[in-house]
């Protein structure tokens, strides 16, 4: 557990939404995608992923559909909705503001 990087709180929803901008994915796919894109730095725990997906479904930011995978198994695929796309924009800009703010504090601390 110690070697896994913990996600910044509140960023999981944003990461999921961002991942889904490339197209429909099932839960496992989302987790794998985040892991791969972050070069194994970010690991999404399943215990957080599925509750988060339910949360997004409730807000109607994503849609879910049962489809067949390439290997012919039934899986639930999530797609981004228009509202989800808008929400992503909001979260990204909030996130950038936050990173910028943290950066300023850190730079300042280094200079001092």
């Amino acid at each position, binding site marked *: 557990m110690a070697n896994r990087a913990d996600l910044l709180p509140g960023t999981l929803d944003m990461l999921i939404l961002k991942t889904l901008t490339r197209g429909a994915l*099932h*839960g*496992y796919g989302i*987790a794998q995608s985040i892991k791969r894109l972050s070069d194994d730095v970010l690991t999404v*725990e*399943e*215990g957080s992923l*599925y*509750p988060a997906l*339910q*949360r997004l*479904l*409730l*807000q*109607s930011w994503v849609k879910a559909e*049962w489809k067949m995978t390439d290997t012919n*198994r*039934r*899986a*639930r695929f999530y797609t981004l909705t228009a509202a989800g796309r808008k929400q992503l924009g909001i979260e990204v800009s909030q996130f950038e503001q936050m990173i910028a703010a943290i950066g300023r504090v850190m730079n300042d601390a280094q200079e001092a």
Partner: protein
Amino acid sequence: MTLLNKLLLLFRRRRFDSELEEEMAFHRAQAEKEFVSAGMTAEQASYAAMRQFGNGVRMQERSREVIGFRAESIAQDTRYALRQLWASPAFTLVILLTLALAIGANTAIFSVINGVLLKRLPYEQPERLVRIFLSNSDYPKFPLNPFDFLDFRARNHSFESMAAFSRGDVQLSGSGEPVRLNGFGITSGYFHVLGLHPHLGREFDRAAEIPGNGLQVMISDRLWRTRFGADPNVIGRKITLNMQAFTVVGVMPAGTVHPGNVYHSFPYGEDVDVWWPFSFAGDPNRRGSHFIEGIARLKDNVNLAQAKSEMNAIMMQLGREHPNNDAGWSVIVIPLYNEVVGQRRQMLLVLLGAVMMVLLIACANAANLLLARASSRQREIAVRLAMGAPRTRVVRQLMTESLLISFLGGGLGLATAFSGVKALVALLPSDFPRSQDIHVSAPVLAFTILITVATGILFGLAPAFQAASADPREGLQKGGRTTIGSGRQSRLRDALVVAEVSLACVLLIGAGLMLRSLLNQLRLDPGFQRVHVLTASLSLPRAIYSKDEQIGRFYHQLAVDLNGLPGIESAGVGSDLPWTGYDENAGGFTIEGKKPPAGEDFHARYHMATPGYFSALGIPLVAGRFFTPADRPDATQVIIINRRMAERYWPGENVIGKRMSFADEPKSDKDWITVVGVVGDVKDQPNSLTAEPAFWFPVIQETWTSDMSVVIRARTDPRLLADALRKEVHRLDPALAVADVQLMDQIVDSSVSTPRFAFALVGLFAGLAIVLAGIGTYGVISYSVSQRTPELGIRMALGAVRSDVMGLILSHAGKLAGLGTVLGVMAAFALARLLKSLVFEVSTADPLTFASVAGMVIAVALLAGYIPALRATATDPVNALRNE
């Protein structure tokens, strides 16, 4: 949107679960596949995937929490709590029954408080209504003189309106046997003051107050329905009252409530049937007689003190204008509400306090039982905490359980309250104001819910806090083993028992004081003999019996006839009966050779009686003689006085043969009346401080009233004589109503109904309290015994004998009871002062009551400790140790 989605999911719960499960299974399968392709065996891969995935159930739960409602987990908690309660029925039964009784009793008492004290009086803006009385050093609260009233009404600027009324029952005749109706003479504007309006017709105008205009009447809704068949054209019709034809001018609606009055008192309530116009007859400059009562409505911008000071200024003017009659009086203005509920308020608040204490005891008891159970559930709670249940969740679970218990108890309590209120109203003294307003109504329900929730929280706090601070490791470690309960916890339980015992002590002392007071009133020598005495009242219509001599002759003859009947030991007629609050008073008479004390006049209750009256009532002769047939109208005028009058106005003298006079300036012998007898004292009311000075005229020589009471002392059951009495009355005058036929026993009983009521309730609560405190003590001691079984086993194995063990346990019970009693006695000592106005001839620090209650409480506690102590000594030390 979110809410809508949640709601939709609520109906598709099963599908949600199965989909989630499938989705996770898919996830696990994918992960497994990956591990296999990375070179693991199938078994290793499956294990790794499972480990990576974590606790599936927990994960599903978290997903469910996202879509769930808070209410759902409450429902879950409730189901769980119900299972817990069902699992230990004895515990549940005890706790529910005690709570049901306590909450039921609280609800019942609160419905009385709500109906009598809190509900507004049924008049317009009742808070602006006041009653007006006079007061001086002899008479703290006295009715008004009619002409004084006219001046008050004309001169005041404080009141929007003012009226007066005076009791005057009437006899209704016509079809069927004549009946007596409750009636009041009222001035114009009486109903206007109250803010009540006739349903038909109008109320009396000023012209009706002029003598000669009085033959009009307003009737109650009930009389209108029973006598006139609810005739809408009743206005203008005639009705025969006191043998005279009265014209109906108005009908009052149902719910026209009599505000209560003092002189010839008639309690607050709905039972007045006729109102006739009060007429201001006589000489306006003679203002010595007081028999009407004022009622008025304050102007919006005038307060009570202002009104009072203006009225007193007017009284001062009147005192200067009529120095003989009006000097020395002051005016008192009392809010109508205080007048109606007045002395009952204190008693009801005491009852509320008592019943609240019962609820507190029930709370402490419930808390104790829950604590005991919580410690046996320590392991369960520890397991839940260890498995990752958040503390808040465990606390919420326990609070849900307490609230569930209190709601079940409250529900049962409410059911008890419905019958309890009925029983309570039946038990109320007959003159209790507003008893018809006592119901389990909406405010009462709100109160019940409030105390139910408060109770649940109160007794749930202790176990919940304990759980919140529990250390799961500790709970798991000692789980199965019995050890001495943690010190903090057993201290809390001991403290609860001490509180229960001390509250029970307070209640028992209250009940003891009330019992002593009741016994004092019952043991009181009433001054007459109550058994075998039948009474009734008669009223002669002035239209027929216009001369006093006619009235005197009628009653004298009736007494003679009754004495001739078989089965009668003695019969008589008198102006009144003992203990009925008779309040006629004569002042300003002359006593030969005496001067009244400065600033005062000679005064005494005046009565009339026939020769048999005193012996029929069993009032003893102290000196001289009773009246005899020889005291004829043409013989020397004679009078009988009571002992109090003799001692007050002829201290240390032999009064027989002394003379007094009612003439303004007695000259000839004919003006003087001779005292021929002294009789024993009878108080106005059983709890009056002293008897008033009083005298009796022989009915045949002097009669001031047409209303009299008949008294018959029977050889056997007096009820058998009621018909004979009616027959004799109707032989003399078939048009007379024989009213209020009752036994002297009933009159005496109803005169102690208030102390009896108060004692019955406080006694009931105290009984409940001591039982609860006993259960509480038993619970704590037997719990501590079960916890200490191994310790006791070791002690016995090491040579302690049974009496040592017994002593050890009883001393625990004794300590708790002792401390509780000391605290209880101290609290009772402080609180008993509130009972001062409610008890009769008992000190509120009565040592007998305090001592016997203390003894009783300690005895009960020791008994409650004895049963578990017995069990402890009966255990085999080997078994006790082996169980370890």
